[in-house]
């Protein structure tokens, strides 16, 4: 779990899974694949509690779709973490 509590924002309120990446290009790579797979997703700013950076963006997607991460890995997407977003923080997820 992250140290600070979270205030959910944007699509995170609806989609409760958050995928973080090394670079913005990786975010877009993943976004394109999720679109091809008809998986809803949204690009959101990465909470500072997970990464402090000036452009860090993440992808949120429905929690129930987390199994799709395997497809992203198969497509060569590089990511740094998968979290469940709750009102009391971000919790590492397994899939």
């Amino acid at each position: 779990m992250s140290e600070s509590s979270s205030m959910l924002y944007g699509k995170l309120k609806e989609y409760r899974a958050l995928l973080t990446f090394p670079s913005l290009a990786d975010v877009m790579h993943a976004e394109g694949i999720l679109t091809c797979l008809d998986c809803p997703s949204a690009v959101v700013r990465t909470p500072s509690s997970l990464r402090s950076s000036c452009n860090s963006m993440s992808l949120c997607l429905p929690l129930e779709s987390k199994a799709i991460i395997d497809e992203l890995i198969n497509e060569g997407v590089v990511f740094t973490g998968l979290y469940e977003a709750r009102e009391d923080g971000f919790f590492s997820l397994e899939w």
Partner: protein
Amino acid sequence: MIYLDNAATTWPKPQQVVTAIEEALVHKGGNAGRGGHGAAMQMARLIYQTREDLCVLFGTNNPTRVVFTQNATYALNQALFGILQTGDHVITSSLEHNAVARPLWALKQRGVEVSEIPGVPGEEFDLEVYNKAFRPNTKLVVTLHASNVTGTLLPVKQIGQIAHEHGVYYLLDAAQTAGVFPIDLGHLPVDLLAFPGHKGLLGPQGTGGLIVKSEIRLESLIYGGTGSLSEEDRQPDFMPDALESGTLNGPGIAGLGAGVRYILSEGVDKIRVREQALCRKLWEGLREISVVKLYGSDMVERRSPIVAFNIGEFDSIEASHILEEEAGVIARAGIHCAPHAHRMLGTLQLQQGVIRFSPSHFTSEEEIEAALQAVRRVAEELS
């Protein structure tokens, strides 16, 4: 004006390129990767779209391995200085542009060993000598795809295959071929591809790039802000951020993407066939002028769209000046930043250089005929 210097930079550009740049400047002017707000993301998406378009054009599938630079020269320097270290050995050709020759000279001063494969007109790259040039410390082979002086194509498939047989990476300079010849990284034995955005890809000046295959790690030429890992002093080691410090040329890259999409819709083959047909017309017309000396193979279909020639013994610079002054024909003359190639042609020693005509697929047959007429007239005057 009859513009025949497309080997230096293509002009005019497709209207789609102009529109894309304007759209980026007027409506999507945020700084990609600098903040997660909507304006930054709009520009980030434009840039990423261009990465994807380039992947389609070059037959590769990982947009994160497309690195944007301001031109092919920067991309070549990034590859050469990023991979070669003191004690390494590199093999190159005798046709190289200064974009390769000069960084190799600088690297030689730092203790990198450089072998230049000899060639003669008609056999520009001696494969037998090349095969014997490898050493235990050979790390890289770098060649151009086509000469910017004569358009001569090197046997890049064989060069790459032989490099790989020796366990050595191959860096290809596609300055004269990207967008005109098919370059399929899924099949070509090329590990690093450097390309300009403003030539055959029809984008604006100030754009270019380097495609780096996944197993290769390059040391960055410059360090700085990437928008990622901002809390750390060390440069990110992931691509493309590792090699893309500082704000990218967003509007230019948007224009480059539009150029690539234009090429994909027209078809590389269609563009090349059109340009080579114009070169055939130029070649045949120039050949009929008795004092004109042509350089390179008469098989213009097996060259990039360039026709190099001289009018008798006259200085190419002087002759091209007269062509522009009297007939508005724009050609590139001199030694084209490629003294090695001119040494092979014998035009460096004579201090003559050559006149280079390079049409684009936008050039009309009438313009070619007018250029030929101008050369006939100048040849008569100078004779």
